[in-house]
């Protein structure tokens, strides 16, 4: 049974594109077939995060306007079997597409893929409506900040209004040190306020910036903590029960210990 999942947030810059790329790669590495769709028309980004920007010929709007077939626009990621990207158009605007057209497109993709992940643009206007149109469920990304959580609450309401099931939450850019000195809301604080189930916590980590520089999402790196955090989210998305929460506090926990053992000490140091 295939599923279309929209990755959304309300606020910009909280990590939707980073999450879409990493979840997509992780699900594919776990053996699923995945299409990641960049629905941020006019502000194409997912292609560069995935390092596939040089291979774009056709985009989502070309497909919708019938200038090419869906298969021609899909870019195969040679590093992860079963992973394909449908890029956004860069020189068009969000009104080039209607929710009805998006739904038809994602329905078609669902015939071919186990997962269709839609990277939603920021905001609550047309772009959001397009991105959720064909979704079976939503993942909400937030950071532990007042403004991001406020917008997440707004989006949760809109997801409910779109008659999707209860969304799951990813808390991104979590900083253990700040949490432990009381300068950042912790997991419990945020879940109490937003009252939706948690999909996972992603640490604030320099690996994300390095991997964006290179166009190689962090989940490709076996030794990356932040990659591991995304891999666990992907396992939960795939329905694996009781995936334990990653303890990414610096040098602590099984992951830190394993890292030191295996001589990956430096990788864990990036956790702020």
């Amino acid at each position, binding site marked *: 049974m295939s599923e279309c999942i929209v990755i959304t947030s309300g606020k910009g810059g909280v990590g939707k594109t980073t999450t879409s790329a990493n979840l997509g790669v992780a699900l594919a590495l776990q053996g699923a077939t995945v299409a990641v769709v960049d629905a941020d028309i006019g502000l194409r980004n997912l292609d560069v995060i995935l390092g596939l920007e040089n291979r774009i010929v056709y985009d989502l709007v070309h497909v919708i306007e019938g200038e090419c077939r869906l298969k021609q626009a899909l870019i195969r990621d040679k590093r992860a079997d079963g992973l394909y990207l449908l890029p956004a158009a860069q020189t068009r605007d969000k009104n080039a597409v209607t929710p009805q057209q998006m739904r038809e497109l994602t329905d078609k993709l669902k015939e071919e893929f186990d997962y269709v992940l839609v990277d939603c643009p920021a905001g609550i206007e047309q772009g959001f409506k397009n991105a959720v149109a064909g979704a079976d469920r939503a993942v909400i990304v937030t950071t532990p900040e*007042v403004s991001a959580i*406020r917008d997440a609450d*707004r989006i949760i309401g809109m997801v409910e209004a779109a008659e999707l099931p209860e969304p799951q939450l990813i808390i991104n850019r979590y900083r253990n040190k700040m949490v432990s*000195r009381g*300068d*950042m809301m912790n997991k419990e*604080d945020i879940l109490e*306020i937003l009252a939706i189930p948690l999909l996972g916590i992603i640490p604030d980590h320099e690996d994300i910036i390095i991997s964006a520089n290179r166009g190689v999402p962090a989940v490709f790196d076996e030794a990356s903590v932040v990659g591991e955090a995304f891999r666990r989210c992907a396992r939960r998305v795939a329905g694996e029960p009781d995936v334990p929460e990653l303890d990414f506090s610096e040098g602590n926990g099984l992951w830190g210990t394993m890292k030191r053992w295996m001589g990956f000490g430096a990788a864990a140091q990036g956790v702020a």
Partner: protein
Amino acid sequence: MNTLINKLFNRDNRTSKDDAKQRLKVLLIHDQVDLTPAQLDAMQDEITAVIQKYVEIDRDNSIVRLERGDDRIALISSVPVRRVIERALPA
């Protein structure tokens, strides 16, 4: 810098995340009913004016606020009314 901010706001016993959480709780309730705290204040002034036509009230100790219940948001108001005996006494 942290301590300076704390001193300025005299919140030595509160961490910044407590402030964040408190502010968010108020913010989300107001967002959900689309009424800002300032609009709520204005409403309180109007309500007070109406009540004052009938009874004398203790404006400083009146409260009007939004509260989240189990599955709904309620407007909670407490308006202390002065007893006539207080009014009769010379100031």
